[in-house]
């Protein structure tokens, strides 16, 4: 382990990164700089006092205790941990992008606005939507924006009673949490025997109070909702709208579009489908696309263009807009990366990415099916869910499988999600992983299944090879220690 940076600090050690201030300036400034003593800070904040070299070594050593896509296979279901191309990073760092102030005159940022305008169009085309806002900062933020648009639409029709949001029991936790944030109530749909939405359940759930159905397609089991058009008909006939959670878009690019399936609103996860890095938790970007009739409700501002060839501008004059969901225009540098990715891939490349993502998932499913149970029949799309419940009688759980994988040098899949599968292992290989990597992972999973029979204890103790072993999360939550302190 690495000592906390505060314990490395030596009082009085200090690097300086700024030139000292011009004495002429200091004298002249005196007229206006009085800071009343009660506003001046007495006790300096306890920040580390270290040389640049020591700081760099500290963080470099920390980085070495971390898995990333660049170091390990990361088959986290629903997270789309594909390779993050390096050109994207360099493009976002160009001074002409990184060095722009958001309130610069529009004439001085035409390149940035052009990029955003084109990205709006490309995303709209990929999802089959008529208009796109790039403002939301993450997928969940996009969900929130999308639901607010739906609520604003219902209210514009005088439908104030539409406050129920229907979600399948296999949905991401963000869906019901978003509904609550938008002031809605959640209605949960039980999945049918095939793992998809049960149409009868849906018919019973909809009504005059339905605001929306939130759905991923393919769903979190990696299964395509075949009856999607009928579902759309049921919801629309009841007066509700359809919301597409874009977390699983990587399965269908160029094959099918949410807009053609009857969805009215979608969000995109640029940090999943469009190859921008996850950053250890963020930043991402969660643009929202809508059908034409919802366009007036998009957040302000929207990037528009004066005619076909004219200048680009930020349109704030939108009286029916839901307002703002954050300051400025979105996580711009993430947008730059996603745009570079789309330009590199092109229409055929994006389709090939989805094709390969589905091929990889089905291949891995075929390789793993002999060792773990497959709760629902395939083919799967970009991800699949297995159950480790057959290992349970040997006292081995999905968590043990996950932890043991670390010893084999793999990041584990998502575990215990979706909630409807017992001992769930949710695996999404993505298209950028080679057959060799998939084979090595399959062999590790098979070896673990064997170990469960022969030596279950070794699995309970796993991982053995990591900087720390299993951590006491219960104690962490019971007596939270959330910051470093000088004593204790």
């Amino acid at each position, binding site marked *: 382990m690495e000592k906390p940076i505060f314990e490395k600090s030596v009082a009085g050690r200090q690097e300086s*990164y700024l030139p000292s201030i011009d004495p002429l*300036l200091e004298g002249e400034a005196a007229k*206006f*700089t009085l*800071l*009343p003593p009660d506003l001046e800070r007495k006790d300096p904040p306890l920040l*580390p*006092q*270290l040389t640049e070299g020591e*700081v760099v070594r500290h963080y470099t050593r920390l980085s070495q205790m971390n*898995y990333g*896509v*660049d170091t390990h296979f990361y088959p986290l279901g629903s997270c789309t941990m*594909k390779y993050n191309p390096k050109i994207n*990073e360099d493009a976002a760092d160009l001074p002409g*992008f990184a*060095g*722009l102030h*958001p309130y610069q005159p529009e004439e001085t*940022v035409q*390149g940035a606005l052009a990029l955003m305008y084109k990205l709006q169009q490309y995303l709209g085309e990929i999802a089959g939507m008529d208009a796109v806002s790039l403002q939301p900062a*993450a*997928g969940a933020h996009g969900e*929130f924006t999308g639901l607010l648009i739906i609520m604003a639409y219902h209210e514009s029709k005088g439908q104030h009673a539409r406050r129920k949001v229907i979600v399948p029991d296999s949905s991401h*936790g963000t869906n019901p949490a978003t509904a609550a944030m938008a002031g809605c109530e*959640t209605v949960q749909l039980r999945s049918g025997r095939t793992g998809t939405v049960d149409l009868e359940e849906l018919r019973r759930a909809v009504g005059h109070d339905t605001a929306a159905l939130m759905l991923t397609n393919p769903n979190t089991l990696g*299964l*395509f909702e075949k009856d*999607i058009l009928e579902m759309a008909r049921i919801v629309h006939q009841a007066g509700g709208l359809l919301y597409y959670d874009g977390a699983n878009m990587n399965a269908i*690019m*160029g094959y099918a579009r949410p807009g053609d399936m009857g969805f009215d609103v979608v969000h995109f996860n640029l940090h999943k489908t469009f190859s921008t890095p996850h950053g*250890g*938790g*963020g930043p991402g970007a969660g643009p929202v696309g809508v059908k034409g009739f919802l366009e007036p409700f998009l957040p302000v501002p929207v990037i528009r263009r004066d005619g076909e060839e004219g200048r680009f501008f930020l349109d704030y004059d939108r009286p029916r807009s839901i*307002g*703002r*969901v*954050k*300051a*400025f*225009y979105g996580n711009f*540098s*993430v947008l730059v990366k996603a745009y570079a990715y789309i*330009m*590199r891939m*092109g*229409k055929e490349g994006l*389709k090939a990415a989805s094709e390969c993502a589905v*091929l990889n998932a*089905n291949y891995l499913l*075929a390789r793993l099916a002999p060792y773990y149970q497959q709760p629902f029949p395939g083919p799967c799309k970009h991800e699949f869910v297995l159950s480790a419940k057959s290992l349970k009688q040997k006292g081995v759980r999905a968590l043990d499988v996950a932890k043991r994988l670390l010893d084999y040098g793999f990041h584990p899949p998502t575990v215990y999600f979706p909630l409807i599968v017992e001992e769930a292992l949710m695996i999404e290989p993505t298209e950028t992983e080679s*057959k060799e990597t998939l084979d090595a992972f399959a062999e590790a999973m098979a070896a673990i299944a064997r170990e469960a029979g022969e030596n279950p204890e070794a699995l309970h103790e796993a991982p053995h090879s990591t900087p720390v*072993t299993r*951590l006491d*999360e219960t104690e*962490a*939550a019971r007596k939270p*220690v*959330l*910051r470093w302190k000088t004593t204790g």
Partner: protein
Amino acid sequence: MVPYLPHTQAQIEEMLRTIGADSTEELFVDIPANVRLKDGLRLPEGLSEKEVWDHMVELAEKNCHSGQYVSFLGAGSYQHYQPRAVKHILSRAEFYTAYTPYQPEVSQGILQAMFEYQTMICELTGMDAANASVYDGATAVADAALMAAEATRRKVILVSRLLHPEYRQTMRTYLLRRGLEIREIPWEDGLTSLQALEDALGGDVAGVVIQNPNFLGSIEPLALLADAVHAAGSLLIACVDPVSLGLIESPGKLGADIAVGEGQSLGLPMSFGGPYLGFMAVKENMVRRLPGRIIGKTKDNKGREGYVLTLQAREQHIRREKAASNICSNQALCALAAAVYLALMGPEGLREVGRQCRLKSGYAMSRLTEIPGVTVPFSAPVFKEFVVRTREEPKEINRRLWQAGILGGLDLSRFYPELSGHILLCVTEMRTRQDIDRLVRAWEGIGDGKTNF
């Protein structure tokens, strides 16, 4: 070959045999024909990496960036000096290509870095606990207001009109749907009106949002405001500029119950408005109401210290519709950038940044007010931003400054109709005396119709 895709044709065929399918097309049979895309996406053809690079450079060059002009524009996005080492740490792929640290055994790096970040935010703000970031300053304020309403079970949020206008707009979007009410407190002499605040406070007020320094750059008498807020049983939410907190007293010490803000000023690039860093810190009694990821310290089964995501019972993946917030992805890498910045600067370095912002702003105020017709209308102390009143139209001034290679301040009439003829200027440690003198010379020429530079 398609970029980034690994398989040879022979491998694809071998994989299909293992699956038991004749073609990849067979794997898509579950997508019904009536929703299949017939003619393909109407997108451009893919480009080679070189072509993409040239295209990106070309787009970037259609913009004017901060290296090409001298900027006096702030208003929520600031140019501060980022030590070169920060970017090198952020370029560590183990950090930037990692996911949220759900598997702590292989995520101790980001977990410890975030734990240290939380500590630094607590130290700066004088609070007890911080989360590992939300989207930006605007959403941090909105989340704080929601927390205050939950904690007090009251329905009204008072907000100073001198909170960033876009933060106020974001708050509206977040709060009105939840049945909460927002009332604005007017200002006088560049500060939130204490009298108006006292008049507005009452038993229905959950929280009061004050920005400090406020949008006009003035430093608010936070302790005085805190007393009034607490006397009414309400909570004080202080939206603060973290780079000021080496020099200015911490909001915690001055009585804030929740401290939030925009962390971009800790050396993050302006990047046309994002990604930035929303930080949130609270006193002990509010810890379990904080939204977002929180890192805690614990021990492993061999007794070694380590870090985990904790208090997850507040979060969407556990609590679903009962969660404190729907946030999943946050701004972790921006939080890391802020932490590395603070570690490099240290307490003295941060104080020096603050001192230079304040002195250089003072110098600019002094020099600008030598120009006939230019005045500083408010008397409150400032940090790195201040308002000047001019005889000329701000639009015209900014146009003329731009011709001289200077990005002028914010024309305040954009957000405050009552402040037409007023400009909000920003002077950080980045500006030299020569830069400021150049601003003054270019400005001097405007009134009499000639430009002297």
